[in-house]
């Protein structure tokens, strides 16, 4: 059964990607998940310098959701190139590096450093980490999104994906990124939220606020994908509370070419491969290829 989809010149064996932040650098899950079966892996958000991340607690359960505030803890791009990329180079599954900068110049530096590195199959520009101060509204502001995307585009030949945050005018941001040269868009990141620990009478998270992910945000993500896919002709990658094959189909019918699975991996470590099986079964039963269903629900 053919589950292949294309994101720029990246041919994915299936549309199911591990979302940034929940899958580490891939190897962490190797003992329990057949990671080579995935469409792609997006690694943890990577910055120019090493980052320690936010104070504890960093994770909190909410109804049908997870609030997290890791704060981009990562070893820095040099370490990723030196230690992680050589491992990825031996893999069949493509690995996309998620990058986060404090200003457009940092994004450019990150992209230039990763350009041509063996084992790196693409770049995902994180315009939208809800847990880090900096260009916090870049994922919502079409001008800033355009500026960063255009500068990164000029500094890399790698497939370039831009990850957007929730925005009430997602179509404008999506169009701006397309115009600036993005090859694809990930729609969307977690949404800023907050919980209070009534026992401690304090914000539940050390960083006060966090990013809400999981099924709680799925209808919002579906709506965003629907709008973004209408606005652009580049592929949209749906992300937000996908826990099953049916959830993935919802996103694809709304217009997504591929999907990313994040929170579900924390609940069910094999969620990604289970979703691939369910999509396979769907295609067999319906005698269809996945490419044929993309955007069918667009009216």
């Amino acid at each position, binding site marked *: 059964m053919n589950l292949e989809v294309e994101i720029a010149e990246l041919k994915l064996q299936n549309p199911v990607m591990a979302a940034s*932040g929940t899958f580490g650098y891939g190897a962490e899950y190797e003992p*329990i998940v057949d990671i080579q079966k995935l469409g792609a892996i997006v690694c943890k958000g990577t910055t120019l310098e090493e980052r320690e991340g936010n*104070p504890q607690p960093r*994770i909190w359960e909410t109804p049908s959701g997870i609030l997290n505030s890791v704060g981009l803890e990562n070893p820095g791009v040099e370490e990723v190139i030196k230690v992680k990329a050589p491992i990825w180079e031996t893999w069949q599954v493509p690995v996309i590096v998620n990058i986060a900068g404090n200003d457009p110049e940092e994004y450019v530096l990150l992209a230039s450093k990763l350009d041509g590195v063996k084992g790196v199959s693409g770049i995902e520009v994180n315009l939208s980490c809800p847990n880090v101060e900096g260009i916090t509204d870049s994922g919502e502001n079409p001008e800033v999104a355009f500026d960063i995307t255009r500068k990164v585009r000029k500094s890399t030949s790698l497939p370039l994906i831009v990850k957007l945050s929730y925005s009430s005018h997602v179509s404008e941001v999506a169009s701006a990124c397309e115009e600036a040269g993005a090859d694809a868009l990930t729609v969307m990141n977690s949404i800023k939220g907050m919980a209070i620990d009534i026992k401690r009478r304090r914000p539940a998270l050390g960083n006060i606020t966090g990013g809400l992910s999981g099924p709680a945000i799925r209808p919002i993500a579906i709506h965003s994908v629907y709008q973004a896919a209408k606005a652009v002709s580049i592929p949209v990658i749906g992300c937000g509370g996908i826990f099953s094959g049916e959830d993935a189909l919802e996103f694809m019918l709304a217009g997504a070419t591929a999907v990313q699975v994040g929170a579900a991996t*924390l609940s069910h470590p094999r969620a990604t491969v289970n979703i691939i099986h369910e999509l396979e079964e769907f295609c067999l039963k319906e005698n269809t290829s996945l490419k044929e269903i993309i955007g069918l629900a667009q009216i």
Partner: protein
Amino acid sequence: MPSLNSFPIRYKERPYGDSCILWVEAPEIARDARPGQFVTVGCDGLMLRRPLSVHRVKGEELALMFSATGTGTRWLSERKEGERLDLLGPLGRGFELPPSPTRILLIGGGKGIFPLIFLSEWALDRGFRVSLILGAKTREKLYPAHLVPCGVNLSLITEDGSYGDRGKVTDLLPLSGEVNYIYACGPSSMYREATLKLSGKEVQVLLEVRMGCGVGACHCCTINTKRGPKKVCQDGPTFLLDDILWDELSL
């Protein structure tokens, strides 16, 4: 190497208060588990898996012990024999025992005793002499002495004096006689006290923070230590008491 599978519950015990023990037939995990390691349990309808220390191992069965005080543990306490549990484990770095048998001291405060039972059985089996200071707020919250493995030299203490001595486990420190290997599990207030009373000794403690993945991928459980940032799920949950930065653990 951790396994991920669903395993049948063979036996359920409610030894005291709101505590619960589930004996699960999980041969792969039972074979590989070491004292101090944990598993995560998938709970129906909940987003986050619950980390639970391994309480005991017998052949192909694994005992998980917990207090049914939260949403996840209450759901778990309602499981019945024959039902299956979604387990990932064993995870983390367990306690390290000295290479040749000697005398070791275990300190368990409240629920902190749960993982120490596995450690005491493991150590006794390998010829160690095991002393255990076991304490709780009240007699009702004290792990029953008759469940402590035979051969353990046991001291009991409760804060209200309703059983054993009156006071905290740390009031019995330092224990008379030479002991260089100490293992503790309990609330962070107990660890702070222990730091004062056991300075100069190597004490291994077990830490608990909110976790995401359990395998070192999500970085939700990272804490700063004197040896730099460490992931509790992967670099721990056992740590040297001396390495802990207390401001990091004001949880």
